[in-house]
């Protein structure tokens, strides 16, 4: 009888731990949404990426459509190349789309804003591995202050 009670309580304990693990996975780490699913890669060259990090979000009109995969420095012209993986279901961005590095809030984290361009005949959609040509760099606060100070003269 004693051992049955112990076994029952150990079972409850294990179930509690599994419930806690599931809660951490689904509610805290949001395991189902991140990473999984078909993606394709877009690349973009920036002059300055500011505080952009790997795994930063890529958003279109505030909706997260992908994440930053890797940030490397081009060995030819020493500009950063950001490669982003975008969910497959959003694969109809025209070639004229532009990307810019934005900040959420005043002190928030930086993310990539993708602005879909116009599409008409003769303009193809962006495919896997394509470069987005039209880029705007991150707003670096120090540069801005510098410009402001020196333009006073």
């Amino acid at each position, binding site marked *: 009888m004693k051992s049955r009670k112990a076994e029952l309580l*150990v079972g409850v*304990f294990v179930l509690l*731990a599994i419930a*806690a*693990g599931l809660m951490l996975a689904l509610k805290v780490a949001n395991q189902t949404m991140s990473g999984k699913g078909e993606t394709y890669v877009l690349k973009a060259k920036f002059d300055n990426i500011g505080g952009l990090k790997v795994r930063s979000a890529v958003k279109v009109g505030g909706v997260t459509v992908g994440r930053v995969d890797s940030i490397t420095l081009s060995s030819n012209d020493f500009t950063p190349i950001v490669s982003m993986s975008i969910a497959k279901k959003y694969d109809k961005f025209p070639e004229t789309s532009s990307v810019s590095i934005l900040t959420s809030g005043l*002190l928030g984290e930086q993310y990539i804003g993708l602005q879909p361009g116009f599409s008409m005949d003769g303009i193809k959609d962006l495919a896997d591995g394509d470069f987005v040509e039209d880029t705007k760099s991150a707003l670096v606060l120090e540069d801005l202050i510098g410009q402001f100070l020196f333009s006073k003269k």
Partner: protein
Amino acid sequence: MLDWIAGIGAANIAKVRSFGRATLMLFGAVIAKPQLVKNVPLTIKQIYVVGVQSLLIIVVSGLFIGMVMALQGYTILVGYGAEGSLGPMVALSLLRELGPVVTALLFAGRAGSALTAEIGLMKATEQLSSLEMMAIDPLRRIIAPRLWAGMISMPMLTLIFSAVGILGGHLVGVDWLGVDSGSYWSIMQSTVEWNKDVMNGIIKSLVFAFVIVWIATYKGYDSVPTSEGISKATTQTVVLSSLAVLGLDFVLTALMFGIE
């Protein structure tokens, strides 16, 4: 003078010898001739003693630590208008640091000391020698189930601690102080990574569990079989394993999160 120098040497040799005995005990208990089928019921009984009975203190302290962190974090973050970041702050500090470490410290105090006292008393009342007389290896019969039970229980306790702490933070931050519930969860979800944060916390707690149960069982097994010796061994278990947990936590954090 010469005696003094000889004393230093003897003390060091005794340290190294006790380390060797501890390692031999570990090998004898874990590696030599495993008897999985026979040990499973014993291990389940020990999980009950070590894990289930620690559940209450883990849940209560997890709840309060989450609540205190939300309260403290809110008063600081609200000054920057960044109270939306309360969720990731609570979740990351619980998952990465406080969950494994506080669980380990509580575990050392609640379960480690009990293990040492139990095994020490078994030695004092010569239960271990009588087991040996019946040709039962006390390392396998007594030590091994306790080692495994600790290693199995600690990660589960850590998961429960972190989850309850995050819920406690939600209770104070959202229900009491009025942080938006949506931003509490969604910013947390975009910040916390399963592999980096949750898994590393579990790895930490596994390491801590190993160290604690090893120290606890060794100190009990090696204790002087008198009432004074057992009390000394119990104290040493709590002190040593707490120090080991805190020291190892620094090393593990530096390895896991130090340089990106």
